[in-house]
């Protein structure tokens, strides 16, 4: 119990004093996760939108595959991407391994199915009357799509928030493809694992506090905006 209380005390001190090493790790994590989330959003939201609104053969199968890939372990994606970007891989000459780009590639692959699946769920919940109302008021296909996206904005935001939460807290991809290089690819989760291995809990707990606060903050922000439009 003492070790926990001691670690917590020094962790709070670290957080309050804005420790330089901790800040660097947090910045790397945020940078990588934000880029991954934006890229996955740019691909996943239109993909989900298309799948939700279009009828095509194999649609149900595709949705099942997407839902199944939500449970894909990060280490499997790490291995898969490693096979392509390691020196012997197809993209070996691009020298991507143990860079932030490598982590981003892995994380984007991890969360595209998540963003797509949650976007499909969000769009499917939108009453068809919104589409017909937009059309009868003279909207073309793009304007109608904008209306549907607008009405599904909270569901899509939830998808993005969930995707961000997934990447900022994952460790397998960051460790395998980033290599946990100090100041460069060391993220909050890989740093926490390293500190745990060393038996030094202060920084690990401090990073845990930051991670929890970030997740908590994002959810509060999301619920605040959502609440504004609830009756």
């Amino acid at each position, binding site marked *: 119990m003492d070790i926990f209380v001691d670690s917590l005390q020094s962790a709070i001190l670290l957080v309050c004093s804005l420790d330089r090493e901790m800040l660097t790790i947090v910045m790397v994590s945020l940078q990588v996760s934000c880029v991954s989330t934006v890229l996955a959003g740019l691909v996943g939201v239109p993909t989900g939108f298309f799948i939700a609104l279009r009828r095509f053969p194999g649609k149900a199968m595709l949705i099942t595959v997407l839902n199944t890939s939500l449970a894909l372990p990060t280490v499997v994606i790490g291995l898969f991407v490693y096979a392509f970007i390691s020196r012997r891989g197809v993209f070996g000459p691009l020298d991507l391994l143990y860079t932030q780009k490598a982590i981003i590639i892995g994380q984007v692959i991890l969360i595209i199915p998540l963003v797509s699946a949650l976007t499909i769920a969000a769009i499917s919940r939108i009453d068809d009357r919104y589409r017909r*109302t937009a059309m009868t008021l003279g909207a073309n296909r793009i304007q109608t799509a904008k209306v549907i996206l607008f009405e599904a904005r909270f569901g899509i935001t939830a998808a993005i928030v969930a995707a961000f939460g997934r990447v900022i807290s994952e460790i397998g991809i960051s460790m395998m493809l980033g290599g946990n290089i100090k100041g460069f690819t060391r993220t909050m989760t890989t740093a926490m694992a390293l500190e745990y291995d060393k038996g030094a809990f202060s920084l690990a707990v401090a990073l845990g506090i930051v991670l929890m606060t970030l997740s908590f903050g994002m959810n509060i922000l999301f619920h605040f905006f959502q609440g504004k439009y609830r009756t």
Partner: protein
Amino acid sequence: MKVYSIHNVSKSINGRTILDIDHLELEAGRIYGLLGPNGAGKTTLLNILGFLDQPTSGRLNFFGKAVRFHETDLLLLRKEVVVLDQYPVLFTTSVYNNLEFGLKIRKVERAERERVIDEVLDLVDMASFKHEPAHNLSGGETQRIALARALALSPMVFLCDEPTASVDIENQAAIVALLKQINENKKISIVFTTHDRLLAAGLAHHTLVLNEGHLVSTSYENTFPCRIEPEKDKQVRCSITESAWIFLSATRFKSPIGKARVFIDPEKIELHTGETTTGAANCLQGKILQLMEESGRIRVVVTVGFLLTVILTRGKYNFLRPGIGDTVVVSIPQDAVTLSS
């Protein structure tokens, strides 16, 4: 001037025909009430007239021009026609943004948008709601704002699906008055669907009746589920309720024994005042519940164990002079009855 001409238009979904109209013409500047039971095809017809849905076959003319169901053509046509849903939705933003939506699409200048929005909000008596969030409005207010949103676009045709079905009496009266007003002042043609004959009679210049996807000249009422049972003397008994039935000739009606549907033509039913029967077959006694003038004829609703509609000519009505609450006898001739499985 014909706003719509329909020739052999049909709509099928999964092989089932839900609408099949041989010929229909709607005059510009008139109000048409489209009556019919659930599943009669009213909303399907409205969606086709609103260019939101494509017929499976047939020809539709809009102001004399054949409609091509191509996205580019439909986009232009939809700018002349607005469909108001039975339960309209407002976009989850302000009332102002809702009203502005169609105007922006039509590239109306900002100042003009502002003027039109103020005008239509005054028209529906909801000027104070201009900047309210639309999702905070009640059902009746939503219906009125949806109406205003459509009116802001000054359409040539306004198609309303059950415009008063989901609102209270006060809002119903306001909506009916508004529809009359825009038809008279702005010469907007209106087609509305309803179950309510009183509304149709009071608001529409013409009433159309749809039943099972077809336009029918008679009332869609008097269609009942029934049970067919064999009787002696080459007759079958058609029981509509436990205590109300009619006898039909087994040779004339070759319906199988068991469950069926019976349609009794309201124009062929004979009404006799007083409690005495004429001795004719299939006489049912009941009381008059409702009397209504409809396109020069008198519609009488009689309760005979079930609600039966009888349509009288004015001459017959003047002769009989039935009153509400009077005990009457209705006699149902064989040729008034149609059986279907």
